């Protein structure tokens, strides 16, 4: 059995769950939602063989969820923090599976596997908690909507600047 096949399978199961929920809950525009979900699953599975596909797969799953949220309308989806945690777990599991598949002949430290599994669990739980905090604060009232819009915009700019600065730092001097 190829190394990492179990991890890849677990990741695909999670991706399937992520794709299935919006598809089942939105009978209108089902084609769009199902299409995005299927693309997300396929690209996530492809990431086991070709790691760059992982980003596209996760993006497709998030797009499906966004379409679901838009079509659903109304209040915030209370499962959004869990959705965030499962997305992170899906991505990390598939990344781990891909690394195990291509890892060269190395004698692995017995502590590596449990440590990485623990880290995955922490990432999942942390994502749920972080998403839950955001969920709680965004649910405080529609009067804060404009303020949140500004905060969101600033956050995007800050993240973009941070990412650009980090990439530049990693790339080194010209």
């Amino acid at each position, binding site marked *: 059995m190829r190394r990492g096949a179990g991890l890849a399978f677990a990741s695909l199961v999670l991706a399937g769950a992520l794709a299935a929920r919006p598809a089942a809950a939105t009978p209108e525009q089902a084609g769009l939602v199902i299409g995005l979900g299927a693309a997300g699953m396929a690209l996530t599975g492809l990431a086991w063989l070709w*790691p*760059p596909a*992982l*980003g596209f797969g*996760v*993006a497709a799953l*998030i*797009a499906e*969820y*966004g379409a679901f*949220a*838009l079509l659903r309308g109304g209040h*915030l*989806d209370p499962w*959004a*923090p869990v*959705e*965030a*945690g499962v*997305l*992170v777990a899906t*991505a990390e599991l598939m*990344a*781990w599976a891909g*690394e195990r598949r291509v*890892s*060269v*002949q*190395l*004698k*692995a*430290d017995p*502590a*590596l596997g449990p*440590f990485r599994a623990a*880290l995955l669990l922490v*990432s999942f739980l*942390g*994502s749920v908690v*972080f*998403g839950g905090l*955001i*969920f709680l604060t*965004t649910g405080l009232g529609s009067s804060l909507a404009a303020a*949140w*819009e500004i905060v*969101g*915009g600033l*956050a*995007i700019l800050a*993240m*973009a600047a*941070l*990412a650009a600065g*980090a*990439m530049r730092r*990693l*790339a*080194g001097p010209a």
Partner: protein
Amino acid sequence: MSRRAGGRAGGAGQAATSGAGGRAGGAGGTWAPAVFSRPRPTARLPAYAAIGIGSMVGAMALGRPELVIVAAPFLALVVIALAIGPTPALEVSVSLSSARLVEGEEVDLTVGLAKGRGLHHIDIRPALGTGLAPVGHDQPDGFALLLSPGRRNLTLRLRCEHWGAYDLGRVHLRSWDLLHLVQARGESYDPIPVRVLPRLDTLRTMIAPSATRAVAGNQLSRRSGEGLEFANIRPYQTGDRARSVNWRVSARRGDLWVNEQYLEQATDVVLFLDLFESVSDSAGPGTLDRSVRAAARLAAAYLARRDRVGLISFGGYLEWVRPGMGTTTLYRIVDALLASVVMPTTAWKDIQSLPVRGLPPRALVLGITPLLDERAIQVLFDLRRRGWDVAVIDVSPLGYSSGQPEGGRAPSRGRLTRRGRQEPLPATRVTALARRMWSLQRRQLHEAYRSAGIAVVEWDRSTAADVAIRQLEGTRRIQRRGVV
């Protein structure tokens, strides 16, 4: 004294004095800092950043905070990974349980790690070279570790599969942050030369030189004197020892007669190794490999019987080891052999003779050559003309084509081929004819050598070195009888 230019790693391995694995007879053990390159993002880092930013933009455009909730963890992972960084403060030491080994032996390679603060995932791969391999089938050749602060030792068992000089001091490293989003490659290096000697199996037959030195040794001289092997009897002369008297003959003849023995004297042997060209294929060792092994075995055998042995490696560079005795000379010769590489060169184009000041006057010069390069061929003729006792082992390249009797391509003499493979040609009539012509050319060369008084034997790859040496000794005996 040996002189060397080019070749592989030289110097003696230092005994381990600190760090991991330092023990008597071993090598290495010095701590060297690991130098890492600038960290690079893995494929996921920009993907997560793009997902986060894209989802934020989508949330703004669609007015759905859910997208912020799913995007935020990805952005948080990016920030955490950049904050942690993948580059640890690390020192590495490499040590070996033995620095001088023989083919087939196993050695323990111990990698010591001393790490500063932080927790990192690090992949470690010692650079082993082509002649050393981890013991066992599909055995790991490195380690993947979760490294915490402190010291740690890792041991890898290696098998010496091929003779040569290797440097095992380089260790390749790859380090990640804990989230595996940023990685850095690095290495540490502290030279640890290792000598893997060719297996020196005992030779049953030696090639006897025609002249000996006036020094006690194990070789039977043609002169009589104090020795063990009976040579003759003669009438008693003043000064003969009483224990030399052959009483039975004396009683029969009524006069004193004494036994004479052959003197046991030492000899000088110079091994001449041709490094201009080499031929090999995937079926087994090439001509260079066989030449080096034969030279090592002959050197060990002659030195074991207290002869003086020297070495001349003639090829892209000239290297010689002056004739000497004992273990020190054996190590010098083997070190020179381990550095033997075929270097295609147009140097020495016009040289017809070798600088021969280092050659003892009555030495046996034993040429080990595939007889592919004109320069090596002519040098042996030249030595014979100058009066040295010369014998040649022709390390035949004829069997190195396709493995089929009529296949292959015959390289022209004097053309510099690349060390390595001959691509086999299909067995056609033309190739069969070319091979036959080549074989006849070589036979003609052998005849020329014999006419010059040089005994030569063809050593086919399918026969053992012992057989070729026995044949050569037999050829020389016939030649000597013919001369006498």
